[in-house]
């Protein structure tokens, strides 16, 4: 038996994604965002989270998904990885589940339009729910973004 982990479940469109709970600092409703010019396109700006300035990125934008209007359900998930604090804007976040590590399987090449390297794996929960586990270090990998940017130019 593998160990059991707690996972925060959030949605982008109809897909469900998971982040390990110990990497999540807090989940916030939408806050006023100050735009930051001349930076990555998917960076929405910075927010004031109880006195700390934290950049927020639109996860849809990061994965190249179509961006949508923010709603009442929109949440900012503040994660802390490699000493970086970043907020992710997601469509909704309203579940915490327990998950056995063995249940996480290697992902196929592309899941819901997201490249496999951003993923830790895919877990089947219940009968027809599929949970996509994010690889946060890869999502926040700056080297890759720089390459991406230079390709675009």
């Amino acid at each position, binding site marked *: 038996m593998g160990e059991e982990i707690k996972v925060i479940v959030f949605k982008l469109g109809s897909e469900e994604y998971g982040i390990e709970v110990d990497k999540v600092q807090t989940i916030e409703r939408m806050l006023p965002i100050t735009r930051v010019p001349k930076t990555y396109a998917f960076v929405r700006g910075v927010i004031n989270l109880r*006195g700390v300035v934290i950049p927020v990125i639109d996860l849809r934008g990061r994965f190249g998904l179509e961006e949508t209007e923010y709603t009442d359900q929109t949440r900012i998930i503040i994660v802390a990885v490699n000493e970086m604090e970043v907020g992710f804007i997601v469509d909704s976040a309203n579940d915490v589940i327990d998950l056995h590590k063995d249940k996480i399987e290697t992902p196929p090449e592309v899941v819901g339009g997201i490249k496999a390297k951003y993923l830790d794996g895919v877990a089947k929960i219940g009968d027809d729910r599929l949970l996509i586990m994010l690889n946060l270090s890869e999502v926040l990998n700056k080297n890759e973004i720089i390459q991406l940017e230079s390709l675009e130019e």
Partner: protein
Amino acid sequence: MDMNQYLSMFIDESNDHLQSLNENMLLLESSPSDLSIVQVIFRSAHTLKGMAATMGFEDLAALTHQMENVLDLVRNEKLAMQDFIFDTLFKGLDALESMVQDITEGGDGKADVSAIVSALQAIVRGEDPSAKPQGANAQGEARASDVNTALKLDEFQYAVLNQSIEAGHRVLYIDVHIRENCQLKAVRAYMVFELLERSGEVVKSFPSTQDIEQEKFDFSFSLYYITTKDPAELQRQIIGISEIEKADVTELDAETLQQMSEIGAASQEVAAAVAAPPAAEKGQEAPPAKPEQAPEKAAPAAKTPAKTGGAVPTRTIRVDIERLDVLMNLFSELLIDRVRLEQLSSEIQNHALTETVEHMTRVSSDLQDIVMKLRMVPVDTVFNRFPRMVRDLAKSLDKKVDLIITGADTELDRTVIDEIGDPLVHLLRNAVDHGIEPVADRISAGKPETGTVHLRAFHSGNHVFIEIEEDGRGIYRDKVLKTALKKGVVTEEQAAGMSDEEVHQLLFAPGFSTAEKISDVSGRGVGLDVVKAKITSLGGQVTIYSTPGKGTNFSVQLPLTLSIIAAMLVKMGSEKYAIPLSSIVETGIVKKGQIRAVHGNKMVEFRGSLIPLISLSRIFNIKDFDETEEEETEIIVIHKGERLAALAIDQFIGQNEIVLKSLGKYLPPIKGISGATILGDGQVALILDPNVFIK
């Protein structure tokens, strides 16, 4: 000139360097062929030498210089490390340590280092000093240091004894031996003490009274004693105590006392030397002995014999910068709440509330001053030591140099101040040694005989600039390139395509030195590369501006890690930005008709000259504001040093104290934005870095 304020700094830095010297020497001992360690040691020694010379501790500097010579040979692979070299160097280190210790305790750091110096010189000449004795001097010193801990008198004790002699009391040096078969030696010792205390005062004993009470001694102890009693009588009484084998009582006069305190140890040899038959007592029964008086009288006298009391460095505590950061963060939060409260109270209009908020505002601005001051130090604390250094330097090089310091009250974060001293010393030495020409050369070049070195510090935007400018010979491109080629720093092809600026930067390349002969001052090729590395590690830059024949300017740009700054808040459409007040010259309004185009760039007239008008809305892609649509545009004139530019903005909000926050580690540095701050309404505003807009 008052050295005290940077004495503590010198001590801190010296201790750090000594520590690193020791560690690296040990490292080197385990891998003697690793020349990179030698480099590190050499640099530490070099810096230590510079600091010691600046502070006027000549013995310290002299010894370090000799050690440096040895290390230089090792570094250049002209000498292989051997055991005896290590031993000598370690001995040197020990001597350095005790000198710094002496300085810490308020002494003048003088010590006889001639033995070690000559040993080091012998190594440089290629001799093995262990083959022959190093002369009486070294031996004497070694022996003295063996017993160094024994009966060393401190300043106060010396003063007390000296005073007592002057007052006509007898000062005795007593050496007591207890029989080795004694079971309760502590008790016997106690009895001796008790006997002595009855008719005088024990000033100092070795071992200490505490150790004696706990039997931590080997059947013998020595002590200094003030009394009016006859020494011979006293000796008889001590021997009268059972199980006491022997008691030597020696009377000291002022001269012998001084000798003993100078040696720093009353070794038994010394005692024996003066133990010549207790000189016929002159029968001068001193006035009723009141030993308690002695210390009182000694207090004023303590100042005369040795160093003045003021030499002891200011009492400070070293606080972890991290704690100060926490304090600063907490305060920042308070400040944000304060601004919010002010806003609320002005909306609510309640008299009592307004009053309370106003009081809180005053208290918090006092608190802010303190919190800021904890971290900020005027560069003066570093600059202060330079006039002396430049003077001595100019003298030793037979040059005439005026050092003109401006902006010494410019404040910098303590962390930066601590680090910037060494690089500035190097740059100044460099300016005097390589920049300023000898008097004859200056006259033949038609320059005034006295060279001028300007040392300037000033704020600009979020940076502090420190410039060292001299009117010396300047940097000749060809000469630099020739040396660089010779040293293999650049190739011929590279050299041809280099701009002047790039050529100047070659001076900072490791192992580059244009001085033909090694002087005491600079020119070993350490120095400039270290300077650059240090400044870069502080997040700064060094730029060289030079005109051949006219002089050179080393401009050091340092980040101002101020956490709270005064700023002008401005609005650009729906977005708010903060501009550091330190960069702002003036605010104003220009009409559309006043804006001119010069070579396609927009310019406005400001005080009789044309300055560029910069469109922030275009640079930052601000969607809901475009100044070109306005008939009148608000502008903020900013400066970087002497150069000016105008920023077109939408609206002024007002002046405010803002708390500098970083944008977090995730975002890459953004040109023109130096950070963020949180406004009274809880929103984040970005802080502009105006320096970027002025080219």
